[in-house]
């Protein structure tokens, strides 16, 4: 690479001094690294193009949103849109990189650790390089809409001030993202924090849908006038200051514009100073996270330690050990925990939304079921079937979670039926209480406590059937998960065929649960009493039968299963 930053052509101090390293070099280095990454990898280029198109689409939408008050010539909502929209943008740049495990690492600061670069050069250079990215460009384009608004409402002077404001604001966004990730770099590299971040991400992702719908509903009912003072306050914080300076000028508050630009500048300087301070820890953090401290636990025998207190009832034999280990893993393995959290959140919100249905909520896109105005036993049963399917499909690749560790079961010769029954039991320890909460909560929220039998009955039946179906899928259609600390990583290529199998498992579960739905539709009031016992028996029977039949398959396929779940190195 012919870039001075990495060139070995500076053996003496005098030679280094003749070539000043400028931000331009960092930008060129970044572009070169990007291009080299693309070399011969068509799918990477395709992914990048898709990302760019998506970014452009986002930018266009944002542009018109921010330009709307100006285009409409109406200054009623100009300040509000600028303050809230801009503020959310800054907040997003602040938080999203943390949740998504860091930022674009094309230029990892750790790579510059050995180069004799002044801190100031490094910071400005990395900032310049960070600006050359799809998200930064997209945000710049989107918020340029504010310039249109300011210009339309306040003429040229306001537009010019807004241009300065938007540029400073984008700088602020990028600097905020870099400063925060740099400060947390050492922490993010440790497994424990990543595990935690993974779970937070799962919660955030699972909540996104419901929040969106509640947000829309809230928007419809909101009293807009009461938001005005809030927008003004946000406008005076670094979150809103850069975006509202030109609007203020346009609305006649001339003195406010320079003050807000000053606030932005101060915030930017503070962020860069923070970044510069934490860069050092980010640069050395990559070398080693240090050994984990030894934890002293409660005394007691090895066997007593294996069994969590709430699994204490289990017998101290092979079945009990399997249950105890699985129970520990559902909590200790970030991948599994993230799945559990998703099931809990989605499983609670989707049925509530579907059944509250009606005029003010639009849940049509969350699933294919129709949403009538009022709920009925049929609809309740259907939504419970959905939750049951969702919960049980978590086990569709249960052996993939274990990876090559599953070899221990082969060496010990664990019988397949016992293995499957133990796995079902351990997962149910977490899921059954969750399902109980969902079915009771739904009946209460709907104001029909009498429907508890229907909700819990269809839920248990579907869940039990799902356990059986997914056991078979997990034995026949297992695939290896990569051994990384990122719980959302998937082996590329495994995707399509495997999600097809999962889909098949879901459809199979739904079909097997149809009797419960039909009964709910036909039997009327009698079903309110019969649903729970019938559903529970149906579910339990299906799960046991599944474990019995699939256990034989597992016994014959153990070595093959081990081979498929072992990641290739």
């Amino acid at each position, binding site marked *: 690479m012919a870039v001075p930053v990495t060139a070995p052509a500076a053996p003496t101090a005098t030679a280094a001094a003749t070539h000043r390293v400028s931000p331009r070099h960092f930008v060129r280095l970044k572009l070169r690294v990007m291009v080299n990454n693309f070399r011969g990898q068509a799918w990477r280029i395709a992914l990048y193009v898709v990302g760019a198109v998506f970014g452009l689409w986002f930018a266009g939408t944002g542009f018109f949103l921010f330009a709307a008050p100006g285009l409409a010539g109406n200054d009623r909502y100009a300040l509000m849109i600028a303050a809230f929209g801009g503020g959310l943008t800054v907040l997003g740049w602040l938080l999203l990189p943390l949740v998504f495990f860091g930022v674009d690492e094309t230029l990892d600061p750790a790579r510059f650790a050995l180069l004799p670069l002044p801190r100031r050069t490094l910071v400005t250079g990395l900032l310049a390089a960070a600006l050359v990215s799809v998200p930064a460009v997209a945000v710049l384009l989107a918020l340029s809409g504010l310039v249109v608004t300011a210009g339309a409402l306040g003429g040229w002077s306001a537009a010019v001030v807004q241009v300065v404001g938007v540029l400073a604001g984008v700088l602020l966004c990028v600097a905020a993202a870099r400063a925060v990730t740099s400060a947390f770099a050492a922490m993010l590299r440790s497994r424990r924090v990543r595990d935690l971040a993974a779970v937070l991400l799962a919660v955030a992702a699972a909540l996104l849908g419901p929040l969106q719908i509640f947000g829309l509903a809230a928007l419809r009912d909101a009293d807009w006038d009461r938001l005005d003072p809030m927008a003004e306050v946000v406008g005076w914080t670094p979150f809103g200051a850069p975006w509202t300076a030109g609007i203020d000028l346009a609305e006649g508050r001339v003195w406010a514009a320079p003050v807000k630009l000053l606030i932005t500048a101060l915030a930017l300087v503070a962020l860069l100073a923070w970044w510069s301070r934490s860069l050092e820890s980010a640069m050395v953090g990559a070398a080693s996270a240090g050994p984990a401290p030894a934890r002293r636990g409660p005394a007691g025998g090895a066997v007593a330690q294996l069994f969590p207190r709430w699994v204490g009832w289990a017998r101290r034999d092979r079945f009990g050990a399997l249950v105890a280990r699985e129970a520990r893993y559902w909590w200790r393995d970030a991948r599994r925990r993230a799945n559990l959290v998703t099931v809990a959140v989605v499983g609670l919100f989707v049925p509530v939304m579907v059944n509250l249905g009606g005029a003010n909520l639009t849940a049509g896109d969350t699933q294919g079921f129709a949403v009538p105005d009022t709920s009925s036993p049929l609809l309740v049963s259907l939504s419970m079937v959905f939750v049951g399917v969702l919960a049980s499909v978590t086990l569709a690749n249960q052996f993939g979670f274990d990876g090559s560790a599953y070899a221990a079961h082969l060496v010990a010769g664990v019988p397949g039926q016992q293995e499957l029954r133990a796995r079902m039991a351990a997962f149910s320890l977490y899921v059954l209480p969750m399902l109980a909460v969902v079915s009771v909560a739904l009946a209460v929220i709907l104001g029909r406590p009498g429907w508890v039998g229907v909700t819990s009955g269809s839920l248990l039946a579907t869940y039990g059937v799902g356990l059986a179906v997914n056991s078979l899928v997990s034995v026949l259609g297992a695939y290896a998960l990569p051994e990384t600390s990122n719980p959302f990583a998937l082996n590329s290529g495994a995707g399509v065929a495997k999600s097809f199998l999962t889909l098949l498992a879901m459809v199979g579960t739904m079909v097997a649960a149809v009797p419960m739905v039909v009964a709910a539709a036909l039997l009327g009031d009698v079903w309110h009493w019969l649903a729970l016992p019938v559903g529970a028996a149906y579910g339990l029977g299906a799960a046991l039968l599944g474990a019995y039949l699939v256990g034989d398959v597992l016994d014959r396929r153990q070595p093959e299963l081990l081979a498929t779940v*072992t990641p290739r190195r």
Partner: protein
Amino acid sequence: MTGEQPALSLRGLAKAFDGKIAVAGVDLDVPAGSFYGLLGPNGAGKTTTLSMAVGLLRPDAGGAWVLGHDVWADPVAAKRLLGVMPDGVRLFDRLSGAELLAYHGLLRGMDPAVVDQRAAELLDVLALGDAGRTLVVDYSAGMKKKIGLACALLHGPRLLVLDEPFEAVDPVSAALIRDILQRYVAGGGTVVFSSHVMEVVERLCSHVAILAAGTIKRVGTLPEVRGDRSLEEVFVEVVGGRTATGEELAWLSR
């Protein structure tokens, strides 16, 4: 098979991956009470052979017997006599050392009281007691090997099959592992392990087999295989490596 039964015997074991032959018919008899070293360069098929011998990988052809029990036809009896430490295979590493031992013990159907007592003893002897509740995933490479060995030893097997037990282990831990294995053999157990470190094999083993390109090239007791040369010379000759003549790379010295 009567009288002195081999602890492990392999007959015609063969395996191909995607048409590429990894192991091409291995016959081997490991006498009971021997300390058996399976030598071979990287990619010779050591791990594949041992995986087929212990029931982790289904062979394309051939069979394996542990003290007369067919590993693939009668796995329960064979696996009861067998302790295994696979290489490159993860343990259930989100458990602490003690939890992992308890898990392995109960999976083997052992009595909980016996598991407790043996686990405490093993952790103590292998100097893993200090790790406390630290999860195995946070262990160092040497500690992971040691806990793996403890898991293989816990149920008191008659045959121990270890894949690369000395790989990535510091000298202190290696000495400890060596010591435990020697005591195990002295007590009547049999050890089969794979390695490409000549010094370890020469120091420990009573029997040696050299595996290259998926077939056994030399087999016998250590003196038989070695003759009057060093094991390393024999190994390099069998495997077909080149020895430096001193002519090339002359520019390295100045």
